[in-house]
């Protein structure tokens, strides 16, 4: 009985046919010579069920690994499927929390007034726009063929607000030493994070995997990645140092 879905000739009539789950798009009973007598034994039916679950799980994992390895996607992938995809939830929440924490910090120094909140928000937003425009301009000048959209850049630039919040809160709790310590650690971590994320998107595929690719183009792109990553600690310090006394 030649089954059109089977990839190979089924030459077995024993339980060793269980493991070939890749052909098992349909119930495994189809194609076996004597389904009735085969399934009659309880152990073999249990083993067949287990084997087919294992095979389908294995196939699933292989498919999932394909998703995670291919970073040059055609369409943006939602964070539900790719946990490392940038999204605007953390940046927006962190931005608003930064404004509130800045107000709190100003209040502890008796420098607070309600219009200062709007001023802080406006200032931080203006710096964010300047930073995104600068990154867009430098990406255009270096002719990088990347799938980084503007919104992706806004999301990546918004991740530094988390470190800023941590710095300000530690400055409120532990004074200037706490502020500098935690801010330095957050700056280093966001530097590493930006380099690792942008390296995949900006550099060519070969260079991104760690192979040393010589050439002026890749060197320029690496400098660009490092410059973008280095902007983040600068902004983190610039936007918080006046809040911690």
């Amino acid at each position, binding site marked *: 009985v030649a089954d059109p879905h089977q990839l190979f000739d089924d030459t077995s009539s024993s339980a060793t046919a269980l493991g070939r789950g890749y052909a098992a798009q349909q119930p495994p009973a189809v194609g076996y010579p004597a389904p009735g007598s085969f399934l009659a034994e309880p152990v073999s039916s249990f083993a067949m069920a287990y084997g087919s679950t294992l095979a389908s799980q294995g196939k699933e994992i292989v498919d999932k690994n394909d998703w995670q390895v291919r970073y040059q996607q055609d369409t943006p992938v939602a964070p539900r499927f790719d946990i490392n995809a940038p999204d605007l939830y953390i940046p927006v929440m962190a931005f608003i929390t930064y404004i509130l924490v800045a107000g709190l910090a100003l209040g502890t120094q008796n420098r607070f007034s309600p219009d200062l909140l709007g*001023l802080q928000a*406006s*200032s931080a937003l*203006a710096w964010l726009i300047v930073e995104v425009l600068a990154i867009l301009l430098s990406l*255009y000048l*270096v*002719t990088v063929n990347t799938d980084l959209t503007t919104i992706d850049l806004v999301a990546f630039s918004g991740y530094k607000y988390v470190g800023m919040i941590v710095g300000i809160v530690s400055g409120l709790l532990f004074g200037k030493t706490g502020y500098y310590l935690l801010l330095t650690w957050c700056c280093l971590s966001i530097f590493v994070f930006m380099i690792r994320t942008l390296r995949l998107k900006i550099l060519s595929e070969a260079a991104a995997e760690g192979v040393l690719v010589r050439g002026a183009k890749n060197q320029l792109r690496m400098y660009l990645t490092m410059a973008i990553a280095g902007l983040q600690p600068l902004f983190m310090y610039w936007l918080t140092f006046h809040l911690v006394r």
Partner: protein
Amino acid sequence: AFTLYSLLQAALLFVNAIAVLHEERFLRNVGWGTDQGIGGFGEEPGIKAQLMNLIRSVRTVMRVPLIAVNSITIVLLFLFG
């Protein structure tokens, strides 16, 4: 401090500065004319070629809107200081 309004002002001044660069009298002498840089149909336009392209595009696109935006800004600054 640095507000969104000052960002708008700075952007307007910057685009005005780009629009004012004269093609024949200035850019050609510096070597940034539009007929001087684009060499061949190679793969990689360098940074200078990209910059020249950008300047030319900004000047072409923003010429008419800049008239309108500048006039509005002048009137508003007159009225409200």
